[in-house]
């Protein structure tokens, strides 16, 4: 195999990573500003409408629809413009993270997901792309903050503690299964992240913070979120996408294990926790069609499933010793 490393490209990749994190943090701040402010604006508008309605006995709603009256489109309020700018920055951040991954691959002449730093970057990228697809409607923009928080936590951990210099991978990883197995698992994990976030928000929406008369900052934020039903549907649809993808990832891993380690399944800690996570997600799908489990309990199961994925990523790779301990961190 080619063991030359293009140092220049590797450096550009690192810059793209840093740039991506900075841009995403900025995007998150802008989106958070929108989330925090626009609610109060809407409340003001409602109060005005209410006051007018008292005076004109309900004629206000019709006023805007009178034929012949051209209503100038109101300039988008400041907070909305901030939110839109934030969303554009999110897209820029995704592009930069993608550039970081591609440049890593070009500099090392291999699939750029051969250690934990690279794997987490790819998973974060998959999560962001999945969110960009699922949350493409403008009314879902409020959800972006909650996707960006865990992704940025992951990227910070990978960049700060798990950074690995561009290098060839060890012989056990030199297989055409590396691009297949790891990318598929990464895609599944990234989409599960979106599902987990949607389930957490669903539970928030269903909690006392989501009640119409709830007071407090958290309640104001929760009120900004889409309906519980929509959140639930996002969680379900992302999970039924990620469940078979992750299943295929595990099976590809088993096929590779047969080739590399001499057996397709050996209850290595990583395999065991992948099995656990898969069973939990299977339980989620069963819970969805079991009376009494449909709503909140199913959402909890989904969150536990994502917790198992996170546990599998960090605890199993960094704390226990198994065949997947090739993280590049000693």
């Amino acid at each position, binding site marked *: 195999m080619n*063991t030359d490393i293009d140092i220049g490209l590797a450096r550009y990749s690192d810059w793209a990573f840093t740039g991506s994190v900075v841009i995403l943090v900025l995007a998150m701040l802008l989106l958070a500003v929108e989330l925090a402010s626009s609610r109060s604006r809407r409340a003001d508008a409602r109060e005005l409408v209410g006051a007018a309605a008292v005076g004109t006995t309900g004629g206000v709603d019709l006023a805007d629809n009178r034929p012949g009256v051209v209503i100038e489109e109101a300039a988008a309020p400041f907070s909305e413009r901030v939110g839109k700018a934030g969303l554009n920055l999110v897209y820029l951040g995704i592009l930069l993270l993608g550039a970081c991954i591609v440049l890593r691959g070009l500099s090392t002449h291999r699939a750029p997901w051969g250690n934990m730093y690279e794997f987490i970057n790819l998973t974060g990228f998959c999560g962001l792309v999945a969110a960009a697809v699922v949350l493409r409607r403008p009314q879902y923009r409020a959800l972006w903050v909650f996707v960006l928080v865990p992704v940025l936590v992951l990227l910070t951990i990978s960049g700060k503690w798990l950074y690995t210099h561009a290098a060839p991978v060890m*012989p056990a990883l030199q297989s055409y299964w590396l691009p297949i197995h790891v990318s598929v698992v990464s895609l599944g994990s990234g989409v599960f992240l979106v599902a987990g976030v949607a389930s957490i928000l669903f539970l928030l929406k269903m909690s006392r913070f989501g009640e119409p008369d709830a007071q407090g900052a958290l309640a104001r934020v929760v009120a900004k979120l889409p309906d519980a039903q929509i959140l639930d549907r996002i969680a379900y649809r992302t999970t039924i996408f990620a469940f078979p993808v992750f299943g295929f990832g595990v099976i590809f891993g088993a096929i590779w294990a047969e080739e590399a380690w001499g057996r*397709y399944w050996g209850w290595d800690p990583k395999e065991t*926790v992948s099995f656990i996570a898969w069973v939990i997600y299977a339980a989620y799908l069963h819970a969805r069609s079991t009376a009494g489990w449909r709503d909140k309990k199913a959402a909890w199961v989904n969150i536990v499933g994502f917790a198992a994925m996170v546990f599998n990523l960090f605890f199993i790779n960094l704390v226990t010793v198994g065949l997947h301990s090739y993280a590049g961190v000693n």
Partner: protein
Amino acid sequence: MGTALVLLFLLALGAVPGALLPQRSLNESKVQQYLNQHPVIGPWFDRLQLFDVFSSFWFTAIYALLFISLVGCLTPRIVEHSRSLRATPVPAPRNLSRLPRHAAVTVSGTPAEAAARIGGQLRGWRRVTRTTDDVVEISAEKGYLREFGNIVFHFSLLGLLAAVAIGKLFGYEGNVIVLANGGPGFCSASPAAFDSFRAGNNVDGTSLYPMCIRVNDFEANYLPTGQATSFSSNIDYQAGNDLDTGTWRSYRLEVNHPLRVGGDRVYLQGHGYAPTFTVTFPNGEQRTQTVQFLPNDLQSLLSSGALRIDPPAGLYTADQRRKNQIAIAGLFAPTQQMDGKLLSSSFPAMRDPAVAVDIYRGDTGLDSGRPQSLFSLDNRLVEQKRLNKVKRVNLIVGQQVDLGDGTMVRFDGATEFVNLQVSHDPAQVWVLVFAMTMMGGLLVSLVVRRRRVWARVSDSGSAPGTVNVELGGLARTDNSGWGEELDKLAQRVAEADRA
């Protein structure tokens, strides 16, 4: 469903100690270490089989119950599904506008013509047309594959379990260390040919697939950091008819490229160094031995091991012989790095090999009948003064040391060895087949949606030559996007009229 849910949770929960506690099937010595470190809780864990989770009675019970529940749940569903496959779609409800999705269009033609056109738009649906007086009703249904996929998924799990079980019963795995010097190698004639052998309950070791392997060389490449970039080994093998004709075939064995022969697989699993020592006895006779050392540090391949060398026959009397055996134990570094007198290794490749050894004289205990580790001397012999340390030295290649009585010990260098694994699993291809049907069934059951559509075509009454078409639809699973689907159908029905 509730039962399955609870059992799935138990299955996930039951597997957790398998990830958190050391497991005998993976690493026996780590289990022992854990037991030594936790003298109170350890034995209790052991009693609960927490070190053998995946063969424990309770884990077996969970998945056995899960599969019983699966069969109990799915068998009635097969019956019902096969019945529904023969059934005709149900008649249209009286009031289609009460259905969750509803549309009405007016098209030209007679009711029968319009109904035929609508039927054309519902190609691939199972449909039935019922005519009463001047009203034509179409009932259509699709998405039968969903339930089929679901059933295939669940029964594939059953097949998967059976295939895994058969593989475990009839399979075996053996590991053997072979010097990579073109030497005699090994033949897989019996479990005794392997250094370690794990076999299923139905393997008695008498009918292993016969093959012989000799290892000609081993090559490893490393980055300057010491990280390995490639391992490969040229081997010769013979199996099947070649054994009778004595034909050897060559193969380049690499990590990720096992040798597949006769349904068995041979893997390159590890490598290390086997140092060579020559002992010159006082009468001038020499004994040379090459013994594999255990790589203690996989990064630098600093290895430890022991050699036990018998004096030449006739040099000593029988009791004297057991007082003059030579034992050598210590460290081997492929690239030596000295910290004072302490030997360590700075690089895994053999650039500047050296050993730091203790040399003993006395009884090596090889004919005592007690088994010993290959990689270390029996410490009891040292404690009992039956084996006495004569020298502690560091040697580089070619250096020798005098033991004081004319016996010389020389370090000659080292040979690489490879750790080969022979694996046999007659059912693993079926595991793959069932894994694939399982995923196929899962995909079908997640992608296919069950839909019901009814169309009622009746005379419009107002304009002659036109008919009213009323459409009603029901999404039986996953109704997202269903609204647009029905609207599109109504649109197509209207457009088909114009075309």
